[in-house]
């Protein structure tokens, strides 16, 4: 899991698994709600180069849940009013203690959209719902005990 001097690798196969951290409890095998999906940019972990799902919990989230999805599950070409088309791609963003760390980025046409505030919220709402439907929960979040 340590980077140990390894370079980044921006090649993602369509069937590569990505892992997303959840802070809401769902049953294993369930599809999470779109309400539990953040809008990009957000972090995931990749499976290539031996990335285990649990690495997405590094370094500070040992009790969180995990949902997995494939790169091909990322929504593509969601259109906003004005017929602007948006798509999403993963980018490998290795960290020293988490080599498999990656991010999901938004593209407006072929240009990366850096500021999410410039994109219609309804585009993101649709993105979050569509991505949630491509996800499967593989580890349940441990809700804190009620006080």
């Amino acid at each position, binding site marked *: 899991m340590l980077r140990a001097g390894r370079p980044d690798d921006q090649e993602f196969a369509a069937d590569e698994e990505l892992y997303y*951290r959840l*802070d*809401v409890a769902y049953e294993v095998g369930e599809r999470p*709600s*779109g*309400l*539990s*999906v*953040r*809008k990009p940019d957000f972090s995931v972990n990749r499976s290539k180069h031996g990335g285990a799902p649990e690495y997405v919990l590094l370094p500070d*989230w040992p009790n*969180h849940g995990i949902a997995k999805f494939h790169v091909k599950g990322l929504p593509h070409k969601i259109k906003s009013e004005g017929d602007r088309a948006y798509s999403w791609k993963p980018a490998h963003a290795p960290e020293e203690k988490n080599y498999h760390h990656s991010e999901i980025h938004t593209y407006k046409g072929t240009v990366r959209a850096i500021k999410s505030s410039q994109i219609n*919220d*309804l585009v993101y*709402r*649709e993105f*979050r*719902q*569509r991505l949630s*439907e491509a996800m499967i929960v593989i580890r349940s979040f441990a809700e*804190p005990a*009620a*006080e």
Partner: protein
Amino acid sequence: MQQQTSTIVPRIYMRSDGRFARDHFRVPSQGAEKLQKGTISVPVCEGNGKSATKVKKRVLFLVHDWIRSFGQAFDPIEKSLDRIRLEVETWRRDAPAPNTQAFSDAEALLSRLKIKRFRPDRVLHSAEGGIGFLFRSGRRYADFECSNAGSVTAVVSDGAGHVEAWPVETSFIEQTAAIDKVRAFIES
């Protein structure tokens, strides 16, 4: 001429802003008897009964029970919302904690869901900051999101590729129309 006696009964009514408020109103005792027999289902009239000296407790209990049964189906949802509210004090999740705006909008929306007797399957915090109510039926899915920024949006999905998202204004008419749309989608 026989003097008409009156009875004070409580009412929960909807204000012009769509929120619920509580007060009392006066009905002729004859009307109160009708209320006990269930012939008056929802007491709605103007006036507060502050000058009244007599309150018939049995009528109060009847109305109270009616209101309780009306809301009981929503108890688990309200408890979940309360749990989220309590947790805000010690929030340690990835998502931003829901703020007072989100709770206020969620409560207003929940009151309208109650009126429509359309119970969400779950209430949960949003990954983007806010409160959401979700509904599932087979592959069909819908939710409302009350964001920390003060917006309310809805999403429906048939689970087979059709996804629609739209903004929901906070007025009573807009929200009940959105609830009707979501319900028709989920129950179709």
